């Protein structure tokens, strides 16, 4: 098919609950963009302007619907004064923690929550991306979670996971500070761009059920997710991207509870990991929320173009009639080392199998 809408029109249609000409695509491209434009991956994350330019060029090259954003899974330590490394080394894929601000329980009390008067850490680079996006009429997308994953990297991860059993009060104190950091940074971006131009991205892998039980999620992740989302709703930010990373099937009841608590207000788009069937997502969220497809990222990297088209086709067929709308996505970041033809597999599948009559 020949596209009848521009990428912006298509994305706007799905956000508004209208049928676009075809299934839109958010390929969750970050590091892949650096490779496509020939930029060192470290530069992509170390400089928000470069991050914007690589993603902007990549989106124009392929013509997919998502717009640039700055973010990575280890958000938190830099914002609290820790040290991160940029991915210049072989095999690296994203910034990583060199020094955790919290190594011992006593460090939690000393941790100072950054104010809402300026961006800190990675938010300085995120601001550069958001400035460029908003100047061009695109939304300002920035991280607002997940609190649990951020706390698990602000502290030494294996210690934090022990503390939720042995030192629950201290773990809660840390989670509270991390949630406040997110709220303050969200407030800063809302003040800078206006809530109507903001999109919050919330997601992380440490709360996956390969790591913690749903009971621990209820006790340690859910209350702080609620706290941040209460503020998102108070700020009246229209769109929230939720990425429960990896296998979070046992946490689904809490994500439903989150949405029910706010009467399903706001536009929420869910990108679960490939472990969560689309059928389940549609059943649980589909009447109110947009569902993002979840093509398996390692398969995008290791399988052929034809096989990836087939995976996208299956995803589209399962998801495209979701009542509140559907976006074709990978179940996590697009693999940075995937061949350049792979985003085309998404586009070709959407044009061939995702047309709305």
């Amino acid at each position, binding site marked *: 098919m020949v596209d009848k809408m521009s990428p912006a029109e298509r994305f706007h249609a799905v956000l508004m609950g209208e049928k676009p000409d075809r299934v839109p695509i958010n390929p969750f491209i970050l590091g892949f963009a650096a490779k496509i434009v020939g930029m060192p991956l470290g530069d992509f994350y170390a400089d928000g302007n470069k991050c914007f330019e690589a993603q902007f060029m990549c989106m124009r090259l392929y013509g997919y619907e998502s717009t640039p954003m700055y973010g990575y899974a280890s958000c938190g330590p830099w914002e609290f004064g820790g040290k991160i490394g940029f991915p210049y080394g*072989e*095999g690296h894929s994203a910034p990583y923690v060199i020094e955790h601000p919290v190594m011992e329980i006593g460090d939690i009390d000393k941790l100072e929550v950054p104010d809402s008067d300026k961006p800190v850490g990675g938010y300085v680079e995120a601001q550069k991306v958001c400035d460029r996006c908003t100047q061009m009429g695109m939304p300002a997308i920035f991280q607002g979670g997940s609190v649990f994953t951020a706390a698990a990297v602000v502290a030494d991860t294996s210690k934090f996971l022990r503390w939720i059993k*042995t030192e629950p009060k201290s773990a809660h104190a840390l989670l509270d500070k991390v949630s406040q950091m997110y709220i303050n940074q969200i407030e800063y971006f809302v003040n800078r761009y206006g809530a109507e131009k903001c999109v919050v991205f919330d997601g992380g892998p440490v709360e996956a059920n390969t790591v913690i039980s749903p009971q621990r999620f209820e006790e340690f992740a859910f209350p702080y997710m609620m706290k941040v989302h209460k503020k998102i709703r108070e700020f009246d930010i229209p769109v929230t991207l939720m990425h429960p990373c990896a296998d979070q099937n046992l946490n689904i009841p809490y994500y439903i509870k989150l949405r029910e608590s706010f009467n399903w207000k706001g536009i929420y788009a869910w990108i679960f990991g490939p472990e969560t069937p689309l059928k389940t997502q549609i059943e649980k969220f589909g009447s109110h929320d947009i569902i993002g497809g979840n093509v398996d990222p*390692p398969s995008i990297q290791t399988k052929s173009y034809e096989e990836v088209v087939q995976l996208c086709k299956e995803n589209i067929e399962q998801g495209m009639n979701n009542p509140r709308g559907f976006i074709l996505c990978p179940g996590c970041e697009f693999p940075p080392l995937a061949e350049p033809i792979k985003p085309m597999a998404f586009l070709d599948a959407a044009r061939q199998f995702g047309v709305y009559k």
Partner: protein
Amino acid sequence: MVSKEEILEGLAKAVIDGDEVKSEELAKKSLELGIDPYEALMNGCNKGMAKVSELYECKEMFVPEILLSADAMYAAIDILKPHLKVDASAKKPAKVIIGVAQGDIHDIGKNLVKMMLEVAGFILIDVGKDVPVDKFVKKAEEEDADLVTISALMTTSMMYMEPVIKQLKAKNHKAKVIVGGAPINPDFAKKIGADGYGKDAVEAVKVAKNLIGA
């Protein structure tokens, strides 16, 4: 007077509960009572850890609980190990090189596999995280390893598993290679020529045992 059975059961329970203090206390008590340290390890700590594996497999235990169980187990091992009698005629345990692939710093999964393999009686040589290909190969040669286990959590780092396998094969090294981690699946493991794939720590132990015929 505490019986031997009570001590062994107590050790197993301390490991399951992740109670490091109790585990230490009972390991010391077992020595005081003259219980064979090997028996305390096998019928106490290891029995407890076998139950932990079972609970992890059926999603009744998760990583925080297992980390504490590991702490409790290692606390007892530290006390018991110096008292273990060395049996020169016993079959030598298999040696395993374990590490996280190049570019990857996520080592919690690797540490769980390491702990479970140790409990299963393997000798582990931990080469750490973000391990260059050459280091895996060099260490396997130096240690005359029977197995090399590599984990990766990123799609970028998983690409450094195949070169390890290729280099070991090029050198005709006997070590079998097991791979695992979030982005890995059996197809990928097969494609890169790995001898085994473990979807989690418990499965990694089963695969390791199969590969060395234990």
